[in-house]
């Protein structure tokens, strides 16, 4: 929305051929009326307004709130120690006090699922953040400014993209494990995050770049430019919010995929150490049971927890991308 400076003279200006009626004396003021003391419109604020009115948003918030409580306070949900194994009860079915039974090692599956949330959600969320932020920033710049900046950014991304995600992470983790063997809880999680993210960000970058390329030619961008917005303000205030939808989709789906990728790395002895309980670890450990048809519940619990968490983030993503799309009002 254009801003009218308050000190514009209302009478004929020198050099004007004809008198132009002051704005407040024309009916135009009625049609185009707006409160010019109001702060400038903000895409992000508007989006937040729309978001609050969307019930899907609240469903996802409720779901994620539950996940957050489990992550922060697992001891509220079970008294059992997820690292205590009774091999003699290996693969036993559900029983009193053990609603999900035991896995092959004789761990309580329910306790593992509850305690596994922390590491898995951390890996998923942190990976997604670490991948998305640089991906969006660089991708938006590459797409918006084009030229040599695009060439440099895109080709640097290609360098990392050319190295397959899992293989790159595999080698990276082997190196880190060797240099820094005992990293503790946060050390282990962060290294897994960075190993996966190091080769994952170019994908976000490419999607963001593509979306910005598409959006930057739309009418409202030209409009914003016409009213004197700087290119930078235009990029971050108009172009990026309107190109985020595909990035959000990518990010929310990736979140679950990263949790599973951690499992693959752990399976090869490179991800989180066995002392850290995670869904990924338990899902991959349960694979053999699925094949031999023994106790599918061993996989069902952590996989369901992962699916529900994924659902929470995907719904949140849907709600946010809806809210960021100003046209979405028409759909209500």
């Amino acid at each position: 929305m254009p801003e009218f400076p308050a000190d514009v003279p209302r009478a004929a200006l020198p050099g004007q051929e004809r008198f132009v009626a002051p704005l407040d004396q024309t009916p135009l003021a009625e049609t185009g009326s707006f409160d010019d003391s109001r702060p400038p419109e903000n895409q992000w604020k508007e989006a937040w307004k729309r978001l609050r009115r969307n019930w899907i948003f609240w469903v996802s918030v409720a779901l994620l709130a539950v996940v957050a409580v489990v992550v922060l306070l697992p001891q509220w949900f079970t008294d059992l120690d997820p690292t205590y194994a009774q091999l003699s009860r290996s693969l036993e079915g559900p029983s009193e006090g053990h609603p999900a039974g035991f896995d092959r090692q004789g761990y309580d599956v329910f306790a593992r699922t509850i305690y596994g949330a922390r590491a898995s959600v951390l890996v998923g969320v942190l990976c997604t953040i670490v991948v998305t932020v640089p991906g969006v920033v660089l991708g938006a710049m590459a797409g918006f400014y084009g030229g040599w900046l695009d060439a440099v950014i895109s080709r640097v991304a290609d360098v990392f993209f050319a190295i397959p995600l899992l293989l790159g992470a595999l080698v990276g983790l082997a190196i880190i494990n060797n240099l820094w063997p005992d990293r503790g809880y946060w050390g282990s999680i962060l290294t897994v995050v960075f190993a996966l993210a190091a080769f994952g960000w170019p994908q976000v970058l490419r999607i963001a770049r593509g979306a910005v390329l598409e959006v930057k030619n739309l009418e409202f961008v030209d409009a914003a430019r016409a009213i004197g917005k700087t290119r930078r303000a235009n990029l971050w205030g108009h172009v990026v919010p309107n190109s985020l939808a595909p990035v959000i989709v990518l990010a929310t789906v990736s979140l679950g995929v990263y949790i599973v990728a951690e499992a693959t790395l752990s399976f090869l002895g490179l991800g989180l150490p066995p002392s850290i309980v995670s869904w990924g670890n338990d899902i991959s450990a349960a694979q053999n049971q699925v094949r031999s048809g023994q106790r599918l519940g061993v996989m069902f619990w952590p996989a369901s927890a992962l699916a529900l968490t994924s659902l929470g983030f995907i719904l949140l993503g849907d709600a946010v991308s809806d809210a960021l799309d100003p046209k979405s009002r028409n759909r209500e």
Partner: protein
Amino acid sequence: MRTRRTALAGIAIAAAASLMLGACSSGGDDDGGSDSTDAVITAYGTEPQNPLITTNTNEVGGGNIIDLIYAGLVSYKADGSQELEVAESIESEDNKVWTIKLKDWQFTDGTPVTAQSFVDAWNYGAAEENAQLQSYFYYPIEGTDDEGVILDKGTEMSGLKVIDEKTFEVTLKNPEALFPLRLGYSAYFPLPEVAFEDMEAFGKAPIGNGPYKLEKWENNVEAVMVPNPDYKGNRPAKNGGVTFKFYTNPDSAYSDVQAGNLDILDQAPPSALATFKDDDSVQAFESPGTVNGTITIPESLKHFSGEEGKLRRQAISRAIDREEITEKIFEGTRSPSTDFSSPLMPEYREDIPGSEVLEFDADEAKRLWAEADEIQPFTGKFVVAYNGDGPGNKEWVEALTNQLKNNLGIQAEPKAYATFAELRTKVTDRTIGTAFRTGWQPDYPSVYNYLGPIFGTGAGSNDGDYSNKEFDKLLQQALSAEGDEQADLLAKAQEILFEDLPAIPLWNTNVAAVAAKGVENVEFNWQNKPEYQNITK
């Protein structure tokens, strides 16, 4: 439920077979006849990791092929006892200088197998400039160093002497009564003259003297072998050929056996261990095996040397419930160890004094640990390292450390190395700083092979740097002894090991194999391998 599954599986196999006939070039045809000796057997294999050269093939994928296309001086029967094969006689007065006379054999290219064929092959394998992976096996022969490499670069082994076309003489560094037993191993096979002209080309299309000849090696796909009509040894082919189909994952091979596309898989994958015995779509085979699993605790590890170390090692051994792990983790496909070797070895003795340390006893374990704590309290945690690329390692190491946690009340945890290479590097440069998994597959059928190379002072595979003079002496005596006397000496040597526990024996891997329906005469030898030449269908 059960009957329904059978019916379903039966239909599936028939359907799959008819579908596959056209597509399958290797000809896994099921003509229904049980006596047809010309049916080609398809077997699980892995792509050879090296050119197929006898002196350079030290892994299973290539080893299986080499064993079928070559014949050595002796061959092993399924039970591990040996018979003369290419050798007419192998004799020695002093167990040090051996005279070997050959029968009249020829390679499949028509050239004769001569004394020179053996001497040249061994010299090739032991020469530094050839960098052959099997060079280690020549270390008993005079003129080589401890790793079996010829001492002066560019010369030949001083211990080998050609007497005439069919006779040669081998001089050893030390007397060794068991020497002939080694000679059935692939490093001691002969090579034809043509090999030395261009070894690289030869490695792609080797020429041998064994029961089969290699007809085609399609990389990453299969190796096709047909019977060698001129073979006159102890292992004649009873089928129309053997084709190793190469897999990267035994799971997929198992599915192929279920569907009847593969005749034999010699090691059921971990995912099938629980079910393969009851699987109606396959024939299951299970029998005791020779490969053993151990954990080695280096002497240098803090708290694990001297008297304190002995007590702790015994405590750990007694805190491990081998029965439970083999049952729950391996579904009974491994058998708890009863000694440092395998019950299949000819010199095996039951109940060697001291072997009760392998029995689970949580109270005794706690007592021993407490006793050690009196000498010096235990600090830190007990870590067992393994390589993550070996299937199933993670599961048992985790179960084992959990038992130590529960039964000794100490901190114990697994530590993964990504690759076998990484683990072995840490082990060989002695920087590992933890206990680690080890295992042994015997090179020849003798208890000695489980002891000498692993626990002898300064021995090549003595990863834990164990050293005991008395033990060394007993082994030395055992080498030149024979029969019962030798078995007694080896048992005595094991008594010392049970006391010191340089490594903690865990279990022997059983043969757990599957064959497709209709496959017959499947028999496993002391190396846990099927006797491929006897399989028919």
